[in-house]
């Protein structure tokens, strides 16, 4: 199967600033791909390069097999949903939805039928006469999506479309966008800085930092096998704990750089004596009785009812999660056991995962 969208060695400079570095990305037809990364890492730049709103400095972009490097946006047949929605303020919802069809001078009846169908799909049939300024944020968001859907494009590009919505609406729209994607059999590229959004919506997650792709793969693959410390810390919530350590003589345990230099078992064999960083997800630490595990002091307890997030004073701070509520209070001592199956080991210098644990 050929890719619907394919980027090869894409580079982008803004003057001297290197915004995209050697981007290789292949997106299959029907795939939902999320681009995540911290602010300023080049997500929007990559998306806008796909849309043709930015010209890339070198490399190649193919959409549905056609090289589009030199095509203007209007010839690329992709639709974009902007964070600001970018609705046309002087047109009502109907005219906003049908703008692209009216530009193409489609017959009136066809335009009206399409508008009706799309308005129903996005649940806006009763608002067709309203102007954007008369709509709520969520409704504007829907119009922006409708404007994309009506074009039946080769790909949908979303640039943080939900970030202006309140939390509960955002969770709701997440599902709706994904359902819409499935129903339309569309190919979508979705930019977000929220890793939960990326993990829950996408088939394929691309983690970016400083203009490079740090890692890409299925959401749970990234969670289980982060390729480096950055991805490990970025994916997963609450974030992974990192502790400096040294591999033991045997190569099958790590001596943590914590008071008392506790030794934790590793699953598999590592180069003895190597300086490493050990990554421990809060959900993979469990409380055990005294005389076992790591002895730590609780410094803070945050409970949300279904789970409690507990921080322990150590340098750096270690946190773990327990289900439901907890009796632990700040100042209590606690003993934590570590599941060797879920210990991540990164090289202290390169920060790359070594001998991925499994």
């Amino acid at each position, binding site marked *: 199967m050929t890719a619907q969208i394919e980027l090869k060695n894409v580079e982008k400079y803004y003057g001297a600033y290197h915004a995209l570095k050697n981007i290789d990305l292949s997106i299959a037809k029907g795939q939902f791909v999320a681009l995540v990364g911290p602010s300023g890492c080049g997500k929007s730049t990559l998306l806008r390069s796909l*849309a*043709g*709103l930015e010209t890339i400095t070198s490399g190649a972009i193919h959409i549905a097999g056609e090289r589009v490097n030199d095509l*203007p*946006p*209007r010839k*690329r047949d*992709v*639709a*974009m949903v*902007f964070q*600001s929605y*970018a*609705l*046309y*303020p*002087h047109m009502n919802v109907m005219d906003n939805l049908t*703008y*692209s069809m009216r*530009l*193409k001078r489609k017959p009136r009846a066809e335009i009206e039928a399409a508008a009706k169908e799309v308005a129903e799909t996005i649940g806006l049939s009763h608002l067709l006469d309203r*102007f*954007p*300024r008369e709509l709520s944020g969520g409704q504007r968001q829907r119009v922006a999506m409708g*404007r994309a859907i009506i*074009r039946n494009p080769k790909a949908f590009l979303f640039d943080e479309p939900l970030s202006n919505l309140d939390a509960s609406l955002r969770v709701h729209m997440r599902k709706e966008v994904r359902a819409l994607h499935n129903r339309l059999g569309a190919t979508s590229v979705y930019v977000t800085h929220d890793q939960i959004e990326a993990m829950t919506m996408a088939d394929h997650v691309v983690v970016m930092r400083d203009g490079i792709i740090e890692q890409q793969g299925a959401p749970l693959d990234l969670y289980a096998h982060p390729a480096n410390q950055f991805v490990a810390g970025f994916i997963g919530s609450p974030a992974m704990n990192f502790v400096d350590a040294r591999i033991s003589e045997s190569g099958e345990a790590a001596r943590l750089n914590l008071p008392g230099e506790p030794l934790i078992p590793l699953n598999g064999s590592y180069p003895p004596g190597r300086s490493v960083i050990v990554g421990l997800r809060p959900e993979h630490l469990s409380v055990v009785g005294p005389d076992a595990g790591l002895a730590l002091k609780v410094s803070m307890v945050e409970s949300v009812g279904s789970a409690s997030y507990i921080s322990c004073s150590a340098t750096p701070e270690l946190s773990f999660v327990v289900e439901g509520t907890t009796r632990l209070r700040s100042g209590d001592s606690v003993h934590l056991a570590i599941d060797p199956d879920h210990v991540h080991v990164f090289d202290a210098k390169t920060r790359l995962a070594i001998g991925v644990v499994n």
Partner: protein
Amino acid sequence: MSRLLSSLRDGKGFDIVLVAVPLAFLLVFSGLPLIYNVVMSFQAVDMFSLGTFNRPWVGFKNYVDVFSLPATWPIMRNTVIFVVCSIAGQFVIGFALALFFARGFPGSSYIRGLFLASWVMPGLVVGAMWNWILAGDFGVLNYALRSLGIISENIFWASNPAWSLWAVIVANIWLGISFNMILLSVGLAAIPRDLYEAAALDGANGLQKFWTITLPMMRSTIGAVISLGLIFTLQQFDLFASITSGGPANSSNVAQYWAWEMSFRQYDFAKGATISVVMIAVVMIASVIYVRSTRHEVRG
């Protein structure tokens, strides 16, 4: 007394004072002269009754007299041509320049700033400058046209009845371009970039973006620019005074200059007032159109 003071400080009294000061100013310096002018247009005024307010009423006689003068209709026609062509020229060139500078090439904002030079110059200075440019025997315009082979002998722009009005129109367009351009630039800058990006993705080419995004989004700005242009153009006096003096034989005379001539050259104050009242009516209509166009603001 203290109640009055406290009401002045933070009650309704303060609001009233705030409104009253400018209102009083407007009344004294704009309202009264305006009313005086309107009253005068219904009276018989001569040099002897100029100093009194109590003059014989003549009803619409002045209006009838003005509109039966042989010079009236050619001058009205000139006024319409002057206004329409000046505004059209100023607007089209100003808009084109605004769009050009909105592309934001290196140095664009500095060069745009230079255009303000024409705006800060007094009309009389601009008139003198254009007098030289348009001069029949040594003017640079004739020189340029002759060098290009467009004309074979000098045209006396300001004293040739076929060209005199156009000489003033060209100068007035030059004078008004910067005003139009600056206002339209502000309007253009207020249109969000992402609308153009959305339109580009929706399949619009440059011309379609201009018709479907730029023009509708600029509606109120364009209304303001054109209405203000109408008012400024109807006020334009200096250029006539310095380039053609309305001549030759009224061929470049327009209502505002004529009103002045009537009052202060021929001392027929009643007719001068009458002409200006007619102009006030036109300006008021323009103002209403302007206010209505800004009321339909569509930004959001």
